[in-house]
C-alpha cells in the first residue's frame, strides 16, 4: 500500500501547485507553483517507477528529463518575467490583463 501514499502526496502537491498557479499575484510565485506541479509529476513518475517498473526504471529516466526541461523552462520563464518587468515595472499578474476582449 506504499504507492497510493506516494500518489496521494503527489496529487496533493499538484493541487497545491494549481491553487498557487491560479491565485498568486506575483509572477515569480506563479513560476514557483509550476515548479511544484512539475515536482508533483516527478514524484508520480518516481513512485510508479519504483513500485511498478523496478527493473527497467523508465520512470526515473522520465524524471531526469522532466527536471532538465523544467529547469530550462523556469529559466525562460524568469527571462520573460524580467522582460515584462522592464517594461511595466511590476510583476503583478493582475496588471497583465491588456490582451482582453
Amino acid at each position: 500500500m506504499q504507492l497510493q501514499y506516494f500518489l496521494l502526496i503527489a496529487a496533493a502537491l499538484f493541487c497545491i501547485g494549481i491553487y498557487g498557479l491560479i491565485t498568486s499575484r506575483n509572477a515569480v510565485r506563479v513560476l514557483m507553483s509550476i515548479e511544484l506541479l512539475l515536482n508533483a509529476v516527478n514524484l508520480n513518475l518516481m513512485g510508479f517507477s519504483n513500485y511498478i517498473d523496478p527493473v527497467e526504471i523508465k520512470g526515473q529516466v522520465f524524471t531526469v528529463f522532466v527536471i532538465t526541461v523544467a529547469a530550462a523552462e523556469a529559466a525562460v520563464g524568469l527571462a520573460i518575467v524580467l522582460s515584462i518587468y522592464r517594461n511595466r515595472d511590476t510583476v503583478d499578474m493582475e496588471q497583465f490583463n491588456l490582451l482582453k476582449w
Partner: protein
Amino acid sequence: MGQFFLQSAWLIPCYALIGAALAIPWSPAIIHRTGPRPAGYMNLVMTLIAFVHGLFALQATWNQPAQEILIPWLQVAGLDLTIPLELSSITIGATLLVTGLNLLAQVFAIGYQEMDWGWARFYSMLALFEAGMCGLALCNSLFFSYMILEILTLGTYLLVGFWFSQPLVVTGARDAFLTKRVGDLILLMGVVALLPIAGTWNFSELAVWAKTANIDPTVATLLGLALIAGPMGKCAQFPLHLWLDEAMEGPVPSTILRNSVVVATGAWVLIKLQPVLALSPLVQNAVIFIGAVTAVGGSLIAIAQIDIKRTLSYSVSAYMGLVFIAVGTQQVETAFILLFTHAVAMALLVMSTGGIIWNNITQDLTQYGGLWSKRPISGICFLVGASSLVALPPFGGFWAFLEMADNLWTTRPWLVGVLLFVTVLTDFSVMREFGLIFTGKTKQMTERSPEVHWPMVLPMMVLMGFTLHVPILLWQWQLLPSWETLNKTVALLLVGASLLGISLGATIYLNDRWEKPITLVWKPLRDLLAYDFYTAQLYRVTIVFAVAVVSQILYWIDRFLVDGIVNLVGIATVFGGQSLKYNVSGQTQFYALTILTGIALFGVLLSWPVLSRISLIIGG
C-alpha cells in the same frame, strides 16, 4: 346578307374596343398639338358602326330561333372554356340598346365635355363600357359574364375617378370599386361552386339542368345567395347601394350610361340566372325582400335629396329593386321590359338634368327655379322621361308595371302594394324635381340660363322621340296585354297611384304659395332620408371598422410577433457574442483555470462509468 351580319355579331363589342384603343393616342401626353377631339369623333363612328351592325343582325334574327356561336378560348385538363355567344332577338336587341344609348351619350358628351381635355380617357372608358356590356349581352356563359362584370367594375373605378383631382371623386371611385368588388367576389364563389354541381356555366344548359336538378336545399340556398350577391352590388341594392350615390361625382355623360344600362348589367345576369335561383324558395324570397326593401328605401331617399343627380340615382336603385322583385317572382319577361323602359326613360332624365347642370353650374335643387320658360326642350324631355319612368299610361313604364302587378296580384298581393308605393313615391320625387327646377321663382343661379347647344339637345330630342315610341314598339312586339285580358283593377290602381303621386308633388312643388324649402316632415326623419339612412356611417362603424381593426391587429402581429421572433434570433446571437467575449479576460491565470476545469470535466466525463459505480458502492 343578314345572316352574315348575324354570324359576325361578335364584332359588335370589338368595334368599341377598337375605338377605345384608337382614342388613346389623343391623350394630352401623346398628341399635344391637335387637342383631344378626334378621340371622341372616332369613338362615335365606331359606336355608329356597331349600332348599324346590330340593326342588320337584328333583322336577321327577328322571329328566328336563337343561334349560338362558339369561340374557343381555353381548354385545359377537364375544363372546356369555350365562349358561347347567344344570338337571339333579345341579346342583339340589348346590344342595340347599349350601342344606341352610348351613341347618344357620346354625342351628348361632345357638347358636355367641350371644355375638358380628357376626351381620350373619357371616350376610351365609355367605349370599354360599351364593349363590356355588348359582350355581356351576347355572352351566354356565367363564367365569361363574371369576367366581363369584373372588367366593368374596373371600368367604373376609372370612369368615376375621371376627374381625380377632386377628393370626393377619389373616395367615390374607391367605394364604387370596393362595393361592387365585394359583390363580384361572392358571385365568384357561387360561379365556382356551380360548376361541380351543374357541370356547366352555359346559361341555357343551366336552365335545362335546373328544371330537373335534385340538389340539397341548403346547397341550393347557399349557391343562390352567393349568385345574387354579385347583381346586388352591381345593381346598387341595399345594403350595397352607397357606391351609386358616390358615383354621381363622375361626369354626367357617363352617368347617362351608368344609370340606364351599367347598373342593369347585374340585373341582366340575375335574370339569366333565374332558373338556378328558382331552385331554392329561400333565395327567391331573399331576392324579393332585397328588391322590395331597396325599392321602398331608394324611392324614399330620392325624395329627400337636394342633389339633382343623386335624386335620380336613388330612383335607379329603386327600379333595380323592382327588377329584383320581378326576377324573384319568376317574371323574366317583365324584368326585361322593365329594364328596357327604365333604361330609356332614365337616360332621358339624366340627359335633361345634365343639360341643366351644364349651364347652371350648381347641382343643388334648392338653388334652381323658374326654368320652364327658358328651357322648354329640357323641360319637355324631363317630363317625357319622368312619365315614361313611372306608371303613367300610355308611356312605357306603365306597361312594365302593369304586367308585373298583374302577375303579382294573385300570388303576392303585398308586392303590388310595394309597387304602388314606389309608384307614388317616384312620381312625387320626379314631380318634386320638376317643380324645383322648372317652376317657381327664378333664383340667382338660374337668372340667365340659355338652352344648351345642339350636341346636347340633339341626343335628348332623339331619345325623347324614342321614348315616346316605346309603347308603340312594345305593341309591335306584342308585349302589351290585350284589352280583354287587362286586369282593370290593377291598371286603375296604378293610374290612381300615379295620379296621387303627381298631384301630391304638384300641389306642393308647383305651388308658389307653399313655402320652400318644405318642412313637412319631422326633422330627424328628414335627415335620416337625406343622409341615406346614414349608410356611410353604418359602413364606417361595421365593415370598415372591423376590417381596419383586424388589419391593424394583423399588422401588429406581423410587425412585432413574426418579425420579432426572427429579430430575436439575431439579437440573441449578438447578445451572446457581446456578453461571452468577456470570457477573454486577459488574465493568464484565468485561462489556466479554464484549461484545468476543462480537463477536469473531460476527465470526469471519461471516467464516469467508473465513478458512478464507486458512488454506487459507497451508497450501497
